[in-house]
């Protein structure tokens, strides 16, 4: 079996725009799942609302496409009711961190045995490009026409502070690393959070001077810096440019978890 066997091929091509990174993230996630020797009938994908949240609709298992922001609350019900199911959540920065922020921190706190893959494109893609809680300062969106002035969240820091067992950040460029991180998340009992920085050429790239899809992927490639490297830079007194973001595994611990398969 390969990751391609997990797609509902009757629904492809999906609705994502040309060059949208969501498809890449789905590939990496499914590739990780494909290695877990999970049965399809024991696996459930759950999501909220957004471009990213359309992902479960393209996957062949049971899938629950819920209301905006609430995926983790639905997932809590599914997983607690039947811990034998493997439950994976796809979400977006808006879905998870704007309207869904509370369910996010509570699922982390409870440390429920779920794996969350957040496609962070730093924008509301589905609704046409409004600012999100992860839109960087100064970036343009339809609701930040003069440049975003609110500070963004660091979703990984939030997840750690709230109690998640596994936390990592990669990008749509780092497909192999992302696949491995998702796999590590799937294997870790308790709550796993994998943030995948990704491109939304239509609604983020276009407004923020990324002419080509590849430019934005390149940006992700060059602006992600491994935690160890970042720490080395700090140690050596180097100034860390504001637009760098940390990538890599940021937390792995083994706090008691809820809903773990018996």
């Amino acid at each position, binding site marked *: 079996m390969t990751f*391609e066997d997990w*797609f509902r091929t009757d629904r492809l091509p999906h609705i*994502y725009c040309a060059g*949208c*990174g969501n498809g890449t993230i789905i590939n990496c996630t499914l590739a990780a799942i494909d290695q877990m020797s999970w049965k399809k009938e024991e696996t459930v994908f759950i999501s909220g609302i957004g471009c990213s949240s359309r992902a479960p609709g393209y996957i062949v298992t049971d899938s629950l496409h819920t209301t905006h922001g609430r995926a983790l609350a639905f997932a809590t019900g599914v997983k607690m009711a039947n811990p034998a199911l493997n439950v994976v959540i796809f979400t977006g920065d808006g879905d998870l961190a704007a309207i869904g922020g509370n369910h996010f921190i509570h699922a982390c706190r409870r440390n429920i045995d779920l794996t969350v893959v957040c496609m962070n494109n730093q924008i509301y893609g589905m609704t046409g490009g409004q600012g999100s809680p992860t839109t960087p300062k100064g970036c343009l969106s339809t609701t930040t026409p003069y440049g975003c002035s609110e500070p963004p969240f660091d979703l990984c820091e939030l997840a750690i502070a709230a109690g998640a067992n596994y936390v990592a950040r990669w990008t749509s460029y780092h497909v192999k690393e992302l696949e491995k991180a998702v796999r590590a998340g799937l294997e870790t009992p308790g709550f796993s959070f994998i943030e995948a920085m990704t491109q939304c050429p239509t609604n983020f790239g276009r407004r923020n001077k990324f002419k080509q899809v590849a430019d934005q992927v390149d940006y992700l490639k060059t602006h992600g810096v491994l935690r160890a490297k970042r720490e080395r830079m700090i140690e050596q007194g180097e100034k860390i440019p504001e637009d760098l973001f940390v990538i890599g595994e940021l937390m792995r611990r083994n706090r008691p978890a809820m809903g773990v398969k018996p």
Partner: protein
Amino acid sequence: MKLAIDETRCKGCNLCTKVCPYKIFKEGNKPNRKGIVVPELDRPERCANCRLQHLYGRTLCGVCQLTCPDQAIHWVEEQPYEPKKVAIEY
């Protein structure tokens, strides 16, 4: 194994042209019916996966496939299967 782009899925983003270490994908230049310019393949037999998949019994490299956001990149079995000798450019 033969590398192939599924024209019904490809949306012409050209990400494959950036990620392949062998530069097997090249930007295309003719729009298809939907207005999409699908990339072209430059000597796909150079692909690590085409050559060694059968040998190792699993997908190798596969970066283009993982990256392709539209699930448009596949390998198809060649009938009959004929392993090709290729010169690798590093």
